[in-house]
């Protein structure tokens, strides 16, 4: 049974893949069929078309790759499409995945393009040093005489392999080709998961080689070394009639010496738009970062977590959004993303930061968290904020019933959601369709709890006061526990409040049995659309997605689980 509306990303991916195939085939035929390239093909065979087809795909993909990372532009588009736009918004949210896919396609096409041109260069050079068939040699001689235009772009007679190397370093296409391919390789090797997660600075700085990549790409074709017969020449000299008597060219009337010219560069037309948009994006980020941000409160939580509460003029957020934060005192260039943990209804915005690396350690010290005494407000460092940027969790309120699943630190967007839901409920907000929340927090040990436990405790108390303890039902699942903890739990099994969290609802041990959970919830809410929101690892996403599909009814009536995944 297919869960139809859940994944519009698939449509976008299919359209993109289809365009790639179409462009490849189309441009392959452009170079493989018409007479314009008849003589070029005599020289190069199918290596010509095999180099130009991926080139067209490269134009397409290099145009696209800058767009998913224009986060301000995307945010603007999201905001302006406020109507029917749950679909569009979710599509825009899958930007990072798309960016990576396009990058891999660029790498693939670069490989095909380069390999085809390696053959082209080898054969072109060989034809000039008489290391080829007589026809190619004769074709390559055209251009030696003063009034002739050349077909073979290699004019020097240097034999391989020096000849090929010479071409690479003396032709713009060669130099730019090698340079930008190197940039691409360095970008890719520094963007692997290991490097990105553990050494963010290496990833971020190396990625800026894309500037060199795009400049080199724009001028890569400027010397016009891909040659074809000119239109005027085709009128006077038709290849199909004349190709067989090459020794007679120029001597008989209907076969003058053919004339050739190079293709004008096309790439810049594809990429200049996105390059401009990206430039605007960076300018917007810069302008936003200049806006004053004030840290109103710094809270140190146990186990290497700090909370920053801030204010910025004109800052408006929605639940589950994230911001990019820069602290010039720690690093002048780095921006790091953090989920907002405050609700829009509060008069400040906050983030919770785990201290795990260089930058966060630096921030910890800059905010004076390593000192015991009270810090004066003016000593707090200057902060720049870009955002907020949206995620799928804004859709939470439009469902009647939701399942929220957060693994480890993935619970942070839900802090914002739970707070906001409670504010809305208390203020009887009209747009709140939500009647029931099932919340699951999976974590390895009890350490991660503390600041979130405070929040849950507060909600628990408030719900009791409002006589609506059923509104939120939560499960905190410890996925790693030892014998001493186990016996401790066993001893206090009967007590009303959980010993670890102090919360009335109990802590559970081990991972939840998702099948049971989905079936129970499904049976308690028949004929409802239930939103399932996850912030956590891929494996869990797969599990939940499968559960959503298998527990949803096939028809339009009945219960439907709709899966939404956060992507950071």
């Amino acid at each position, binding site marked *: 049974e297919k869960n139809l509306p859940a994944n519009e990303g698939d449509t976008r991916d299919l359209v993109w893949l289809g365009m790639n195939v179409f462009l490849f085939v189309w441009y392959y035929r452009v170079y493989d069929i018409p007479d314009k390239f008849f003589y070029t093909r005599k020289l190069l065979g199918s290596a010509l078309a095999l180099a130009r087809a991926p080139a067209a795909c490269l134009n397409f993909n290099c145009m696209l790759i800058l767009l998913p990372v224009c986060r301000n532009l995307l945010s603007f588009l999201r905001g302006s499409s406020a109507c029917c736009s749950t679909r569009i918004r979710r599509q825009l949210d899958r930007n990072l995945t798309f960016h990576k896919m396009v990058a891999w396609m660029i790498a693939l096409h670069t*490989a095909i393009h380069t*390999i085809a041109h*390696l*053959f082209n260069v*080898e054969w072109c050079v*060989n034809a000039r040093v008489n*290391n080829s068939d007589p026809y190619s040699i004769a074709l390559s001689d055209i251009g030696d005489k003063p009034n002739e235009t050349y077909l073979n772009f290699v004019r020097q007679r240097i*034999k*391989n*392999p020096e000849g*090929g*190397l010479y*071409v690479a370093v003396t032709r713009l296409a060669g130099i730019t080709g*090698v340079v930008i*391919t*190197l940039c691409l*390789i*360095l970008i890719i*090797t*520094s963007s*692997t*998961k*290991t*490097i990105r997660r*553990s*050494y963010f*600075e*290496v990833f971020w700085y190396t990625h800026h080689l894309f500037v060199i990549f795009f400049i080199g790409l724009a001028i890569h074709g400027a010397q016009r070394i891909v040659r074809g017969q000119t239109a005027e020449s085709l009128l006077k000299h038709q290849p199909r009639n004349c190709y067989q008597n090459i020794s007679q060219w120029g001597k008989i009337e209907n076969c003058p010496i053919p004339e050739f010219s190079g293709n004008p560069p096309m790439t810049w037309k594809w990429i200049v738009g996105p390059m401009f948009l990206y430039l605007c994006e960076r300018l917007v980020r810069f302008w936003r970062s200049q806006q004053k941000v004030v840290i109103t409160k710094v809270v140190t939580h146990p186990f290497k977590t700090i909370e920053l509460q801030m204010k910025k003029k004109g800052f408006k957020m929605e639940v589950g959004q994230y911001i990019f934060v820069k602290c010039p005192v720690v690093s002048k260039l780095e921006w790091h993303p953090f989920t907002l943990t405050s609700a829009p209804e509060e008069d400040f915005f906050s983030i919770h930061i785990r201290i795990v*690396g*260089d930058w966060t350690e630096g921030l910890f010290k800059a905010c004076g968290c390593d000192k015991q005494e009270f810090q004066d407000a003016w000593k707090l460092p200057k902060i720049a904020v870009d955002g907020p940027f949206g995620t799928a969790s804004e859709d939470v309120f439009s469902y009647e019933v939701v399942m929220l699943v957060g*693994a*480890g*630190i*993935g619970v942070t967007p839900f802090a914002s959601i739970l707070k906001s839901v409670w504010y809305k409920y208390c203020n009887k907000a009209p747009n709140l369709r939500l009647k029931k929340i099932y919340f699951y927090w*999976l*974590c*390895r040990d009890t350490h991660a709890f503390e600041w979130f436990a405070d929040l849950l405790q507060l909600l628990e108390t408030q719900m009791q006061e409002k006589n609506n303890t059923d509104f939120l039902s939560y499960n905190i699942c410890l*996925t*790693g*526990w*030892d*014998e*001493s903890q*186990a*016996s401790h*739990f*066993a*001893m206090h*099994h009967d007590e009303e409040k959980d010993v670890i969290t102090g919360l009335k609802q*109990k802590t*559970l*041990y*081990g*991972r*939840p049995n998702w099948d049971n959970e989905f079936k129970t919830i499904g049976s308690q809410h028949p004929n409802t659309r239930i939103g399932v929101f996850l*912030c*956590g*690892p891929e494996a869990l996403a797969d599990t939940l997605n499968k559960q959503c599909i298998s527990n949803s009814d096939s028809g339009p009536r009945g219960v439907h689980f709709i899966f939404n995944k*956060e992507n*950071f």
Partner: protein
Amino acid sequence: MGQIEWAMWANEQALASGLILITGGIVATAGQFTQWYLGAYSIAAGVLVCLLEYPRGKRSKGSTMERCGQKYLTRVVKLFGPLTRNYYIRAFLHLGLAVPAGFLLATILGTACLAIASGIYLLAAIRGEQWSPIEPKPKERPQIGGTIKQPPSNPPPRPPAEARKKPSEEAAGVPTGGPQENPMPVNDEVV
């Protein structure tokens, strides 16, 4: 950039270079380019580099993600002792391997990439990094670990009143105070 382990990036770069050398070498050999024997060399050099670089070294901080099936190569690479542990040697080895491939256009990209990897390894060596094999952890509780397939999903049973005193010290071979070492990997990887 205090915490950077350059060797991690050098390793990715070198592995990519190996693949590029192999590809360029295949092009030159299959296309029978002039002096294609340099292409054949490039394939061999590329394979050597890939075999050497495939097993990821252990990071000094935090856990390291192994590459799929790398433990077999880890054993082989470990055998060479200081030759593979020391990054100075690796840097010069890669530089040396890269040079002959620079004489052919088809493989010159491999040369450039491997030379860059060599440079990053040199940087790693200067900062005192070295390669250590990722070894599988010895099983601490074989008698219990063997049969549990999934962490339990129900609360642990409540022991009888008499057995409630000192439960943890009595249990066989359990390290107290630390979190359970799950016999099956429990992936709780943080996004």
